[in-house]
């Protein structure tokens, strides 16, 4: 075996399952989808672990995660950022009470809703950076794009987010 230990299946499921869940939840806003995604990724990781060559485990894992996510997106009719013609992404909010307002902010629902309004690739870059905690290089490796593109997407995503939150 070369440098870097190969994690056991249990270690991966425990340590990374939660990160994968948060990645999927922040990208979709949907707990059931996020749960499904965790199962799918862990399944793929399990199949791939036997032949994984030690190296950048995180890079490998996030590449699988991202591919699994995009595959699931393709399979389903719900698309994170492409509203179907009859769906109205705006919606109408009934005006909330002050208590509701406070708890919404505390639970981050405003931020989550704003995140969901970003174009997919901005949202993904921001989530990988600020929710998952990957470096720009790691995001670039996971998404198969240059570091400059990662930086640009994060930058534009943040600016759009701030605008949506004010």
């Amino acid at each position, binding site marked *: 075996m070369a440098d870097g230990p190969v994690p056991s299946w249990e270690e991966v499921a425990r340590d990374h399952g939660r990160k994968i869940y948060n990645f999927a939840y922040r990208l979709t806003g949907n707990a059931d989808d996020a749960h499904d995604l965790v199962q799918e990724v862990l399944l793929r990781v399990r*199949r791939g672990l*036997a*032949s994984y*060559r030690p190296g950048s485990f995180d890079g490998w894992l996030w590449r699988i995660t*991202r*591919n699994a996510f*995009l*595959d699931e*997106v*393709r*399979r*389903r*009719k719900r*698309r*994170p*950022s*492409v509203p*179907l*013609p009859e769906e109205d992404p705006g919606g109408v909010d009934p005006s909330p009470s002050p208590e509701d307002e406070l708890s919404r902010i505390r639970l981050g629902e405003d931020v989550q809703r704003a995140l969901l309004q970003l*174009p*997919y*690739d901005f949202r993904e870059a921001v989530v990988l950076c600020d929710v998952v905690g990957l470096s720009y290089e790691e995001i670039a490796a996971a*998404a*198969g*794009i*240059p570091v400059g*593109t990662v930086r640009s997407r994060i930058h534009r995503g943040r600016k759009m987010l701030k605008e949506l939150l004010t």
Partner: protein
Amino acid sequence: MRWRITWVLAVIGTLGLPVAAAADESLEDLMQNAGAGEFHAVGVVMCSWGSDSAAATYEVVRTQGMSMVQGPGRDLMLSGSLVAVGSDAVWYALEVSEWSSWSLSDRYSLSEAVPTSRLGRSATAVTILENGSPRARLVIDDESTIPLVTEILDGDGRVFRLASLVEFEPGVGDDHAAMPEDLGSRNVMRRAAAGATLPETAAGYRRADTYGAPGGSLQAYYTDGLFSFSVFESKRGPMPREFAGATVFRVGDGAYRRLITPTNVWVHWSSPDQSYVLVGDLPPDHLVGVLAELPDPGDRALFVRLWRRLFG
């Protein structure tokens, strides 16, 4: 991404497994990954069968799980199960309501991963074998896992279809492909009970789904995981005018007409009571095997009896 292909061979070696058992999964993975990347490309696709051939150029943008294909005559937007067809301002959309899960026939396996380069990019050439003989050759971009070249071979090993990217750029810049705003009509293809005339399997293809379309025709979709085709069955009617100059060919006693487009083969025939159109990307030797198991062409029994009675 070269390691992704070469680990296949390493696994085969270390586990001492026969090639087919391990390679199948890796071919499935390869096909799943080929669909996940984002890119912008211009390509050429051409198909030839005997003296018939067709070619076209096209431009593809794939982003956010959506694809846009611009080809001669029309544009195509794909988003999950939604297909939107049109050009400029006029679009209509089509969607399947349900579909069965994808599985790959075990006659296919992956072999011969060779490092190469294409369009100045590091790539890997692989061969898809069908029962041990080459059926398709791919050149896959290492960084994005997108196939840059796809060659489909016929039963004699000659190239039947070739799709090749002439410009390729992974990731997409700031211009995102977007669904057109006004999709005009939107039709959903609903599953239907399978008719009795079309078989469950044909020459290694499995009938995966059946749809009932407005206008009364039935669509049976067959796939072996790598290639696929739809057979449309309707009450016997006049031949579509596109087939007027089509090449006639025979399978057994039956006569069929075929047309070639760059991405598909089209076949038309009629049985005594029904008319059929088959469309798909399967190679010629597969197609011949399939036609032998679908309902035979034939003239209307009543007409033949009358003719014989009148003219002996």
